[in-house]
């Protein structure tokens, strides 16, 4: 019997280099034989997706990969590190830059959120020309304006705030009886309120602001209310962070002296700075912002409006309100049109806020027949389970780790943040990718998930998250990335001379513990919810994820660390910041606003504090990926392969 395998000819485009290799040779090895060296940062395990090539003709062996979409696979794209030659082949090797981009576009979502309703923000601009008063027509200024505007808008009544009335004679005469009026429709369609009056008919913008007030980060869109276009996006650390990292410490702070007023002022300052950032590059000023929609968790909503969050923390955990009064910008001191209405999206319970109502709206969970798990991962992890027929929700405190806080080298998902890490299983050397390809400054949520997963699979850490300093140190030699540092055992991702900060970027055991606690809390929240509803994992038809991970989250990594349940990859979809997307929709559509209120009213809240199984699920989840490895069959296989 001959052990000789048949030889196949492989032609590599565009250079046209040709080699003959035995059947079953790895494509990456065949390429190397042809003098084409393809980087395999993961050490050739099909785990990083950086070695894509396109098979133009011929047969190969290649399974499914999360790095390749169905369409890419149909086009012949394969990962050369796991794909074997099975016949004569023609293969195209794209230049390195292109391979990188292929990864990026396959895993990244579009930046602009979808608008699910026609643009109808309920804010109108009318350019009207009034006839000047005369002895024959001595109608008052206000009545003259009111009649013209109600006729024009088809309203039965128009409310005009006093400051506009006080300015009215000047405004009308300066514009030579021609004015631009900004009118807000509501609360019923036939009633209206005048928000602003500008002399003349020069074009003036009609802007709105959608704001997501997170416990850690605040993000805002400046929106053109006429076209629905997003004119700008800005984000900033919530300045309240200086007074406590999570909602509980904020609540405690709010109870001290003028703490409530301080926290309200700090969030106003944060939003004010975002407004300044958004309007600075534009010719018009922030007085043209006529409508604001805020999505925030219950505590943030309370603090924003200066309502005490005290009872959110005390049994039986009752907020002052889940539905918030509409206020005017002038009352809160925000630098907008003082008459601009500020609408806060309704909450569901003490720990499930308007951000989740907003997210549920974005995710479409309320209208789909498919059994859906929607989760928003931020400082708190909130979970919604259900479909068009029923909705159930719970919340768990994950801590700010995924948002970059509480982790020594953690940062927000902004340029310079490491968002993806691959560790070679052979050399244990990392390959990193940063947002915007800028020098690394730190690591954001998606980078942390990726790092933890890679460290687990390559054996750098144990399943309890301990760094194996001695044996890894031996393997890596003198310049070991696994070492005992100032903060205890750590793994160094980026050496000081390569980093944008001039300092080593690393993960210590303390950081790892914090991350494991964060992911454990979220997974436990999912498990308790599923068990209460009598749902098994395989019944979940889709998992929709929102949150602050960054530009994207690698589903495979998130499963490997036990953050997400081990379901087929195609059931997961990352939606980005769903809280902000929902606020954007509500800003632009009165119909969306009505739907948000309906959805908030429909959700059943499951109180985990009252559920004694949570602690048990939580400790079970404080392990990688989980104490019950059989819940993660795909990870079990990987770990077994790794240990062989």
């Amino acid at each position, binding site marked *: 019997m001959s052990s000789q395998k048949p030889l196949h000819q492989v032609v590599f485009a565009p250079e046209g280099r040709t080699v003959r290799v035995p059947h079953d040779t790895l494509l990456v090895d065949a390429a190397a034989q042809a003098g084409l060296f393809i980087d395999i940062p993961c050490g050739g395990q099909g785990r990083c997706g950086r070695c894509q090539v396109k098979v133009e003709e011929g047969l190969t062996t290649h399974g499914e990969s999360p790095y390749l979409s169905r369409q890419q696979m149909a086009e012949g794209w394969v990962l050369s590190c796991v794909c074997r030659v099975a016949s004569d082949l023609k293969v195209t090797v794209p230049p390195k830059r292109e391979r990188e981009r292929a990864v990026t576009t396959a895993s990244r979502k579009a930046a602009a959120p979808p608008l699910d309703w026609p643009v109808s923000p309920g804010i109108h601009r009318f350019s009207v020309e009034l006839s000047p008063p005369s002895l024959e027509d001595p109608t008052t200024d206000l009545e003259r304006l009111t009649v013209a505007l109600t006729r024009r808008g088809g309203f039965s009544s128009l409310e005009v705030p006093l400051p506009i009335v006080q300015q009215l004679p000047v405004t009308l005469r300066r514009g030579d009886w021609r004015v631009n009026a900004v009118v807000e429709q509501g609360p019923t369609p036939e009633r209206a309120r005048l928000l602003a009056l500008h002399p003349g008919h020069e074009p003036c913008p009609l802007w709105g602001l959608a704001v997501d007030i997170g416990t850690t980060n605040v993000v805002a869109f400046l929106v053109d209310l006429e076209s629905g276009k997003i004119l700008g996006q800005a984000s900033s650390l919530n300045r309240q962070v200086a007074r406590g990292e999570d909602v509980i410490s904020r609540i405690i702070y709010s109870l001290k002296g003028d703490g409530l007023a301080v926290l309200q002022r700090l969030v106003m300052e944060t939003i004010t700075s975002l407004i300044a950032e958004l309007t600075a590059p534009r010719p018009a000023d922030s007085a043209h912002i006529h409508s604001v929609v805020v999505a925030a968790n219950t505590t943030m909503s309370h603090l924003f409006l200066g309502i005490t969050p005290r009872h959110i923390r005390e049994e039986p955990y009752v907020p002052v309100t889940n539905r918030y009064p509409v206020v005017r910008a002038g009352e809160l001191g925000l630098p907008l049109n003082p008459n601009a209405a500020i609408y806060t999206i309704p909450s569901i319970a003490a720990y499930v806020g308007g951000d989740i109502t907003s997210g549920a709206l974005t995710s479409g969970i309320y209208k789909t027949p498919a059994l859906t798990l929607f989760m928003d991962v931020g400082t708190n992890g909130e979970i919604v389970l259900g479909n068009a027929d029923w909705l159930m929700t719970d919340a768990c405190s994950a801590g700010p780790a995924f948002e970059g806080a509480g982790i020594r080298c953690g940062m927000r998902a902004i340029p310079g943040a490491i968002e993806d890490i691959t560790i070679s299983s052979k050399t244990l050397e990392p390959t990193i990718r940063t947002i915007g390809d800028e020098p690394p400054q730190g690591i954001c949520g998606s980078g942390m998930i990726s790092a933890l997963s890679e460290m687990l699979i390559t054996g750098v850490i*144990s*399943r309890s998250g*301990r760094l*194996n300093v001695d044996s890894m140190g031996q393997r890596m030699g003198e310049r070991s990335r696994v070492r005992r540092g100032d903060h205890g055992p750590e793994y160094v991702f980026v050496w000081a001379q390569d980093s944008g900060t001039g300092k080593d970027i690393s993960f210590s055991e303390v950081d790892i513990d914090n991350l494991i606690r964060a992911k454990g809390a979220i997974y436990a929240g999912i498990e308790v919810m599923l068990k209460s509803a009598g749902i098994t994992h395989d019944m979940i038809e889709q998992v929709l994820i929102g949150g602050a991970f960054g530009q994207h989250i690698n589903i495979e990594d998130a499963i490997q660390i036990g953050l997400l349940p081990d379901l087929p990859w195609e059931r997961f979809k990352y939606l980005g910041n769903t809280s902000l997307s929902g606020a954007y929709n509500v800003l632009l559509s009165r119909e969306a606003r009505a739907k948000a209120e309906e959805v908030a009213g429909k959700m059943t809240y499951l109180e985990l504090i009252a559920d004694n199984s949570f602690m048990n699920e939580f*400790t079970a989840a404080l*392990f990688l990926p989980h104490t019950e490895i059989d819940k993660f069959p795909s990870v079990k296989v990987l770990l077994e392969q790794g240990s062989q």
Partner: protein
Amino acid sequence: MPKVEVPLEKWSGKVREVTLGGSGGRKGLTVGGEATLPFLSFEGAMPHPPSVAIEVSDTPASEWAAPLRQAWGDALEDPGAWAKKAAELGADLIVLRLNSAHPEQGNTGPEQAKAAAEKVLAAVNLPVVVLGPEVPEKDNEVLMAVSDLAAGQRIGLGYCMEKNYRTIAASCIANNHVALAKTPIDLNLAKQLNILISDVGLSADSIIMDPTTGALGYGLEYTYSVMERLRLAALVGDKMTAMPMFCTVGEESWRQKESKFAEGVPPTWGQHDRRSLVWEQITALALINAGADIVVLRHPKTVDAVKAAIRKLAG
């Protein structure tokens, strides 16, 4: 008389059998192997009834309560003599606690640990378990020395804890010993540590777990409940909770004021020497019924009482 069928639970799993000693001239003792809850012989096998260990200290245990000091007398002065007396009083195995290695109780090193272990190993041919002072770094230091000394005699070494399991587990592999894995009263933590130790490469047949004992009045019901859950998990087939269980009953019950003090306590508490024995016995019997495979005791009378109870329960 109509025949009544007794409803029987069908378990798919069973507790692992772990053998201490049985090589290097040491008598063997196998624990575990239960295919049912404790003593339900009509339902499944309990091949090895619970074993009784007697605790011996490498120090003269001057802080121990009077009833204990009276019972052991001069034997307290020498761990070898102490172990010998324990064997005569019916111990199935000896547990040597290296108290003097504790940084606050002498901070002795590997040499003293070896000397104490050598005395005990020479004095008896029963299986032996050696416990460090439960200070991770220190445990590694003294237990490594003892492990090498007793290579091939298959002693038990404790404790492997989440912080230091690697070193002790690796040494158990090298010298064919049994690791004692200790976790703070929690099912998941116990299971996690068993997985971690197994991941290092120590066979699951060489792991005994200590779920942490709470004495009567000091968390007994908590320990009972966690042990019961661990055992139920093992019986339904979970291999990583199927290790035999080890409870330091004597240490925990004699630590409490009810056992320790004769004076300065309410008169209604009754006679001290009786009360303290009852404290240790009730704790031991409760945990045997929760699934303990080894109870570590201090007072000779408790040893008698517990052994008698086990004989009756095992029928």
